[in-house]
């Protein structure tokens, strides 16, 4: 069965630096991969989606890459700010018509001023 690994449980960086989060999967290449942000006591919020035929996607200070050979996605936040501190979840589609997702455990990012 498909497994997702987000390598770091926690990542601490200095404000202004680029945060890079990793998501690896073990089995089939998903048709698409998504990244979500979750703040304490709240539900996940969708950030970006990248399809299997796309190498890179950008949205403001966010960038996602997808390497189906390495079975890996990287999520970058450039010019990080303390407000970017949150847990970031990687999710893959499980297949089927209802768009069911499998989530990674998440990486808790802390951006220090």
């Amino acid at each position, binding site marked *: 069965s498909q497994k997702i690994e987000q390598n770091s449980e926690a990542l601490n960086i200095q404000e202004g630096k680029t945060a890079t989060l990793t998501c690896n999967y073990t089995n089939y290449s998903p048709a698409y991969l*998504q990244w979500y942000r979750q703040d304490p006591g709240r*539900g*996940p919020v*969708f950030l970006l*989606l990248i399809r299997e035929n796309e190498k890179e996607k950008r949205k403001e200070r966010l960038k996602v890459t997808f390497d189906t050979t390495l079975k890996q996605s990287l999520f970058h936040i450039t010019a990080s700010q303390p407000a970017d501190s949150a*847990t970031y979840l990687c999710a893959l589609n499980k297949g089927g018509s209802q*768009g069911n*997702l*499998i*989530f990674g455990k998440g990486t808790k990012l802390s951006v220090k001023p």
Partner: protein
Amino acid sequence: DTAVSQTPKYLVTQMGNDKSIKCEQNLGHDTMYWYKQDSKKFLKIMFSYNNKELIINETVPNRFSPKSPDKAHLNLHINSLELGDSAVYFCASRSSGAFEQYFGPGTRLTVT
């Protein structure tokens, strides 16, 4: 506000009780989900449902049952609650034309 809403926000109950959590979305979406997030923060899908099809994750005990009175609502009913059911439960929805999911604020269930 357009959103996914859940009630209650917190639910504390005793083992053996039966309880329900309600979910409503006013986004016009046609697929809804229930997820469980345990103490280790692992988010796992329990059910997905649209007006034609219910898909149940095989690991979900049959004490859990989704009930959908209409397209905008998917409630979660839990019978004979157990200590291990303590978790945060999230409702989510999705439009059939898109892949991203919109989550509710969560219901923290504590079984004592």
